């Protein structure tokens, strides 16, 4: 306990050496398991690439079926306006009764019916209506489709009127309308690949960080190796933290590969903020998440149990932490529940640092919350671990 060099500092050196050999042991065990290594590599490279490329969360290519009873210039033009990226024309049918069958079969999501005399009515200024049947088995997508369709139809109507009624001169210049001018920040081009690849990276980190240390701890209990460790001068803290440290090192390396090898060069994901801050907070996230896994591990006796336990926790974490749906749309109680999900803070932090260029001054509350959560989880795990054996 003395500050002078001598027995005290020597003991400290030994303390660190113990931690180092334990961490090394965890890494060796991890890398011995070939399937795990294979999936580690896959998850942080190819999977990030595939997901970044392939997933779009907003409405895209909604399949459209059309029944055009008018076959006029106007009806052609309107149909033509339902186009990529939101809609994709799946086909046209002659019999409107057929439409429902297509929707039933899931071959079309939206069915547009244009009535006879559509063009004529439009030209004569007579009010007309087109009908849209929307499959809302996936409700948000259905709503979006209806929303976009409404915009298309409205704009088509206005333009037709302006063109025909001859008020073209005064058109938009001389009408009291609101011209929408959007500026999308942090992702001007609305690049889906940024969001999706980041999301995927975060998902993988979460799965690895929660699962592997937890399973490794339970395996020690199952095989009896933990007895050997308990009889040794290792403290429970060293036994547990070494698993977290090993996982942290592995994940930081994998994240670096993912970020600098795929996301930045291939998708052009910007790194606007401090890279050091990003990696430090990634380490904190791994610590917190691993703490959650270890806490679960101390509640279970075998790997099958800990597997189910982590699964129980990890699925809500992945789906409700703001990667699938924005946090603010969720019911209040879910938001409160998700205060316990370290991923929720990490999503905020990652988007903040990478896309918004935020620094610690704006992120401090997320960081603090995550650190407190991590400390509490790890502390609980330690307490349970001690109680089990002492």
């Amino acid at each position, binding site marked *: 306990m003395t500050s002078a060099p001598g027995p005290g500092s020597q003991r400290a050196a*030994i303390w660190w*050496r*113990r931690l*180092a*050999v*334990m961490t*090394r*042991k965890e890494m*060796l*065990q991890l890398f*011995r*398991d070939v399937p795990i290594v294979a999936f580690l590599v896959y998850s942080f490279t190819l999977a990030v690439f595939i997901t970044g490329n392939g997933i779009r969360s907003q409405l895209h290519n909604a399949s459209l079926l059309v029944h055009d009873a008018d076959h006029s210039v106007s009806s052609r033009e309107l149909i033509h306006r339902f186009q990529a990226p939101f809609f994709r024309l799946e086909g046209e049918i002659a019999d409107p009764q057929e439409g429902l069958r297509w929707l039933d079969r899931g071959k079309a999501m939206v069915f547009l019916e244009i009535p006879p005399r559509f063009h004529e009515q439009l030209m004569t200024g007579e009010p007309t209506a087109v009908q849209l049947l929307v499959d809302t088995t996936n409700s948000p997508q259905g709503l979006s489709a209806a929303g976009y369709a409404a915009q298309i139809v409205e704009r088509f109507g206005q333009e037709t009127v302006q063109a025909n009624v001859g008020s073209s001169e005064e058109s938009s210049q001389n009408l009291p309308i609101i011209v929408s001018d959007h500026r999308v920040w942090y992702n001007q081009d609305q690049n889906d690949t940024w969001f999706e690849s980041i999301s995927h990276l975060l998902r993988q980190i979460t799965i690895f960080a929660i699962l592997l240390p937890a399973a490794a701890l339970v395996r020690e209990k199952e*095989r*009896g*190796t933990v*007895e*050997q*460790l*308990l*009889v*040794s*001068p*290792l*403290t429970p803290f060293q036994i547990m933290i070494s698993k977290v440290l090993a996982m942290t090192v592995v994940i930081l390396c994998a994240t670096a590969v993912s970020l600098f090898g795929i996301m930045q060069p291939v998708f052009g994901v910007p790194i606007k903020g401090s890279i050091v801050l990003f990696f430090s907070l990634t380490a904190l996230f791994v610590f917190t998440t691993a703490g959650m896994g270890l806490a679960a591990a101390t509640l279970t006796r075998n790997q099958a149990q800990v597997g189910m336990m982590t699964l129980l926790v990890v699925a809500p974490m992945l789906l409700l932490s703001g990667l699938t749906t924005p946090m603010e749309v969720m019911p209040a109680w879910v938001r409160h529940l998700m205060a316990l999900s370290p991923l929720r803070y990490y999503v905020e932090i990652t988007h903040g640092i990478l896309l918004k260029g935020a620094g610690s001054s704006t992120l401090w509350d997320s960081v603090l919350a995550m650190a407190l959560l991590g400390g509490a989880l790890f502390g609980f795990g330690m307490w349970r671990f001690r109680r089990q*054996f*002492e």
Partner: protein
Amino acid sequence: MNALTQTTTSQPLIRVSGLEKQYRQHMAVRGIDLTIRQGEIYGLIGPDGAGKSSLMKVIAGVLSYEAGAVEVFGITVDSEPAAERIKHRLGFLPQGLGLNLYPELSVEENVDFFARLRLVPERDLADRKARLLAITRLDRFRDRPMKHLSGGMKQKLGLICTLIHEPELAILDEPTTGVDPVSRRDFWAILTELVQERRMTALVSTAYMDEASRFHRLSLLSNGRILASGTPSEVQALVPGSAVTFQAAPQLEALARLRKTFTQVEAMGPLIHVFTEETERAAAKQRIADGLGDITAGEVRVDDPDLEDVFVALLLRQGRLKDAGDVLPPSSARLNRDGLAIEAKGLVRDFRSFRAVDRVSFQVKQGEIFGLLGANGAGKTTVIKMLTGILPPTGGEGRVAGADMRKAGGVIKERIGYMSQAFSLYLDLTVVENIRLFAGIYGLDKEETRTRLEWIIRMAGLAGYESDLAGRLPMGVRQRLALGCALVHRPRVLFLDEPTSGVDPLGRRHFWDILSRLARDEGVAILITTHYMSEAEHCDRLALMYAGRVVTEGSPGDMKRHVEQEAGHLFEVIADQPAKAVLELRRAGFAGAALYGTRVHMFCRDPVRDKECACQALASSGVTIQSVTARPLSLEDVFVYKVMALEDQERASVSGDSV
């Protein structure tokens, strides 16, 4: 069963020729030829890693091989479909303490599972189950989940499960490892009976050399090859010689002198055991006297060599094994021998309603080797776990170096070494990585780590295995690695829970050399459990546990004297029907009669009168006696006598209660 009657005895049941098996770069079996006939108990012995397990797995059709031919029941086992065709006729018990059983299932459910998997009719199942559980004395534990059985009980259950469908061929890989002496007798009783009654054939490997005399024929394997094959006496005849046992002081000096002349010198407590190739008794004594020089030996006893001596001699002749020699570097610091190293004060441990340990007290001083003996399930492991602080005691206290291990800090923990019963090193790390890990955990610096690593590799005979994964090692080698790891930091107090289970005789001898020196030279206190009674002779003091209690305590000599006083002198009977002889003797009132290999041991209070009485009893029942000779009492006799007496008592009291 028709196939059985059709097969004639002369026809070989198993024919192996030129078998080779390779795991990645490691050659496990390099050209083995073997023929096993129907109705034989065929033994495989050999050092750890000799290729026994691989050979057995190949014959059982659960492992593919690279070259050679294997024919079982006349079917060439060269593909999975071919292997399937032999499986209904065989039973296979893999190595490891009950690893093939299902922990969550009860004893009975495990048996039922194996039987139903083999489509044993329910009525036969009930009969066989009742009979087998009774002989193995597991019937009391029918409903206990397998995970709560002790190591030896698991092993017995494993055997029942393997034999429940009464296979024509039983392949048993070290079935008696970790099984106490009394239970081993049960095991052999079952096996012998099945072989005789059902004309079963058995292929058995073992690390207990005394069991080798039970084999009809055996093969000695080493390094993937067969060194010698034949009946036990044929193999024994390959190395003629004598085993000489005597007392000499100072012992360490005597040992050192003898090692210059003899290759096999072993300390057994106060006694020294030497193997000499001299067959003449007088000449053998003379050679020992020459070797000892000015040290005079006490009472010298010359016997025929054990199979174990022969086995070691054969291996030494092959030049594969180096002499145990001086591998222990001189200790850097002599330790203070004062004070108690281990102290158990009224330790009690309950598991729910079951009392596993009942008021156990003993003390171990520095420099003392203390042996904890007892049948499987007597509570030895639980005592060790309480002393090392892994398990909280229900009552009482355990102290190590004056401290309660449950509250002890790092400094105390650095002084103790522990090796648990189940192999508990990291299977997915290599030998060197495991050693380095424990060196680091105990805070050794780089230089120390390097020297200790070298020492352990040499001490435990791990050279050549350095970069093998621990999980791939043969069981005996694993045990040696675990011991090495327990010793890495030169502990002052050592807890060893069955450290030699599954280790070959050479390894075990070597191991005890080291333990003796650690205790004698460095003053290390050692608490050890073992099922090899020959090893217990090495201990300074012993405690025998039965049903959670310590029933006797004392030095090996004390214990023997005590039994001699109680039961009389020991005689060894060699007869043509040993199993029947035991039964007859017991019926004639020799309660302590028991089978040792193919020989019968019995106690006689009055050497002359009792001997006559015994001989008459045997002769009248048609057993031909070859010889009856007086023998010095061994600890195995003590153990078997004590435990059987206690069991009889218990049975009597149980039946008394029920009346």
